[in-house]
Structure formats: structure tokens, C-alpha cells
């Protein structure tokens, strides 16, 4: 059937059709302006889809959107971190909206992503790369099955990029799926990793 999506007067996604299995990651290495961001936001339900349906576990996601959301984790260009809260507080408030969480789990997750700055430093004072790490910790804590990541490794140094890849690999090994837009291509375990270089592949 295919997914159609417009941005303004531009027909950005033109009858695209793709599926993602459990434990599988699909990396979109499409060129600039090809519609990666639009696709991810469309799948998340943040952009209205002109025609076609997004299905999750066999059901149309628009029928029980709340249930779909609780399986979903979206990380966009904007990290949704508050500069005036510490990393730990940020996680407490934002993860808390979705599930019950305790302080130990939070500081565990922050350690896991290798945030070297003290956890009670205000996020505003962290550099771009450190902030991405905090967002990564949140992603893990959300405990969702489908990850939608828009350029998760942007602004990250080599160590940071490896950490992102590691986090995603761990997620896949727990049976999760991930749809990732990226320009570099992340080093994921080959068995679960699909690469796409242009939207035409799914037409």
C-alpha cells in the first residue's frame, strides 16, 4: 500500500513501504533532504500521514495510539533536556511520565553511557556531546521496544559514537527494533543490521 507524506507542497515520501522485525535495526543513510526526519516523525505519529498506515504488532497504530506510544521511544534533533535541571533530575521527570523509576536506576543508566561530568551538574553546563549522552541514558530507561533515532551520533566524538552503537546493540539483543537516520553508519552487529542508501529501495 505504501506510506505517503507531504511537507508543505512537497511530496516527501512517495509510497514507501518498509517493515522491521524484532531484534532488527534499519539504518537510513539517505542523502540530505531525502526525508529521513520526515519518515521518523511520521512513524512516531508526530507528522500526519497523507495515506497509508503505520502498523505495530499487526494493528494500525492510530487505533490505540497511547498503547503504541508506550512501546515507542523517539529521539529527535531536540533532546528534550532542561538546561536548569541536573542530568539525574532530567531523567527522573521525563522517564517518570512513562514508568515508575527510582534514583538507583537513573544513576546506573548515567554511568552506563559514560557520563563523566558529575551527575548533579546542571545540563546547561554540559557540552553538546555530554548532553547527547544524557539523552541516550534516558532512551535506555524508557524501556521501549521500538527506537526511532534521528542522527543519534551527531556531535559525538569517536568514544560517544561507539557508545551509541553499543546501546543500540544491547537494545537489539533484548529483542528491540530500531529505525535510525544517520550519515556515518553506526557499527552494529552485522546479523541484525540493515543499511539503506536511498528511499527508492522501499518504493
Amino acid at each position, binding site marked *: 500500500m505504501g506510506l505517503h507524506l507531504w511537507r508543505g507542497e512537497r511530496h516527501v515520501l512517495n509510497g514507501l513501504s518498509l517493515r522491521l522485525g524484532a531484534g532488527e535495526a534499519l539504518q537510513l543513510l539517505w542523502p540530505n533532504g531525502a526525508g529521513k526526519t520526515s519518515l521518523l*516523525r511520521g512513524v*512516531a*505519529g*508526530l*507528522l*500526519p500521514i497523507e495515506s497509508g498506515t503505520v502498523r505495530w504488532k499487526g494493528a494500525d497504530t492510530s487505533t490505540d495510539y*497511547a*498503547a503504541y*506510544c*508506550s512501546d*515507542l521511544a*523517539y529521539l*529527535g*534533533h*531536540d*533532546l*528534550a*533536556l*532542561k538546561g*536548569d*535541571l541536573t542530568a539525574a*533530575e532530567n531523567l*527522573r*521527570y*521525563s522517564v*517518570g*511520565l*512513562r*514508568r*515508575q523509576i527510582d534514583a538507583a536506576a537513573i544513576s546506573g543508566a548515567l554511568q552506563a553511557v559514560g557520563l563523566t561530568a558529575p551527575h548533579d551538574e546542571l545540563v546547561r553546563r554540559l557540552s553538546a556531546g555530554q548532553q547527547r549522552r544524557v539523552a541516550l541514558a534516558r532512551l535506555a530507561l524508557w*524501556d521501549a521496544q521500538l527506537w526511532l533515532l534521528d542522527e543519534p551520533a551527531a556531535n559525538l566524538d569517536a568514544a560517544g559514537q561507539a557508545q551509541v552503537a553499543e546501546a543500540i546493540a544491547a537494545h537489539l539483543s533484548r529483542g528491540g527494533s530500531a529505525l535510525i537516520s544517520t550519515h556515518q553508519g553506526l557499527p552494529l552487529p552485522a546479523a541484525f543490521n540493515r543499511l539503506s542508501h536511498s528511499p527508492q529501495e522501499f518504493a
Partner: protein
Amino acid sequence: MSRPASSLRAASLILQRDLTLAFRRPGEWLQPVAFFLIVTMLFPLALDPELSRLRALAPGALWVAALLSSVLALEFLFREDGRDGTLEQFALSGQSFAWLLLAKTASHWLLTGLPLAIAAPLAAVGLGAPASAIPGILVALLLGSVSLSLLGAIGAGLTLGIRRGGALLSLLVLPLAIPTLVFGARATAMAIQGEPAAAPLYLLAALTVFGITLAPLAAAAAVRISLE
């Protein structure tokens, strides 16, 4: 595997978060109050000295200032959470979006409307109102500011993604706020003249209830559209 958060818990987290943020930057929520006080002060300055001693001017000055400073503060209701992606995450949290936005509106009111309602009697006394009018003015402004926050949430949602949304926001909200202004000013005038102000206060309360039931839904629709 993980237990989902209840909607009450979610709302209380939002309130906690906003209050923590406000506590870290006390300057921010003091600003609308300061603006309110300055604007009420501008009127006597811009008027003929004899005229400015008229008590009858006090309700008008108070309410126009209150309305303007609420509208000014509104710009910040969703702006930052929109810009940094927090609202997106609210929309994807699986909780009712309208409910989360109601919680945000509540915290916004606590931080801007409530201080305004508390400062208003002071300003009124400064403009020559008798001390006996204080309770009436306080109640009028409490009710009025709640309904302004609620109405304003719709406008703030609609203008969220828009560059220079501030002026457009006032253009959208001020006409909506006219009933609140009229009834609020009338109640204040009656309080100052020592008459019982129950009738306009009931009308204000009705506006507020109406706002609580409908505004969050409209605001949620508006914000969702702005997020696209």
C-alpha cells in the same frame, strides 16, 4: 516488565519539575508581577493629576494591567518546552496529552497568575481603593487569572511554532479575554464601592469552569498541530 506511571503521578511530576525550574530562576516568575505593578503605575503618570486621583479608575487600570501581564507571560507557557522537544515527548508519553497540558497550565498559573492575584490588592490600595475592598479584589483576580491562563493556553498552543508569535498571541487571546476583563473589572469596581460583588463573581466563576472543561482539549489539538 516496567510499571506504567499513573496520570496523577505524571501531572504531579510536571508540577514538581516546573516549580523546581522556577525555584532555580526566581527572576522569571517575578517578572510578570513586576510588569503588572509597573503598568498600573503608568496610568496615573500618563493622566491628568486630578483625574488620576479618581478611585473609579482603579478597576480599569488593574484589569488592563493584569490582562496584559498574563498575556505577556503566556508566551512562555509552551514556548520553551516546545523548542527543546519536551512537548514532543509529552505527546509520545502515552498519557493523555490534554491532561499533561492542563498540568502545565496549572503550574504556569501557580507561577504567574497567583502572584498577580496576590499583588493586585496592593496595587489597588496604591490607586486609592479602601482596605475593605481587598477580599473582593483578591477573589476576582484569582478567578480571572485562572480563566485567562486557560484561554491563553489555546492561543499559546496555536502560536507555538511561529516566529514572532508573541504579538499574534495577544491578537488571538485579547478578544477571547474580553468577557473576563469586563466581569472582573465590574466585580472590582463593586468591591471598591463597597457593594456586594457576587453577581459578576459568579459569572467569572462560570467562565473559569467553562475554561477548565474545554480549554485543555482545544489547547492539546492546537499544540499537536504546532508540533508537526
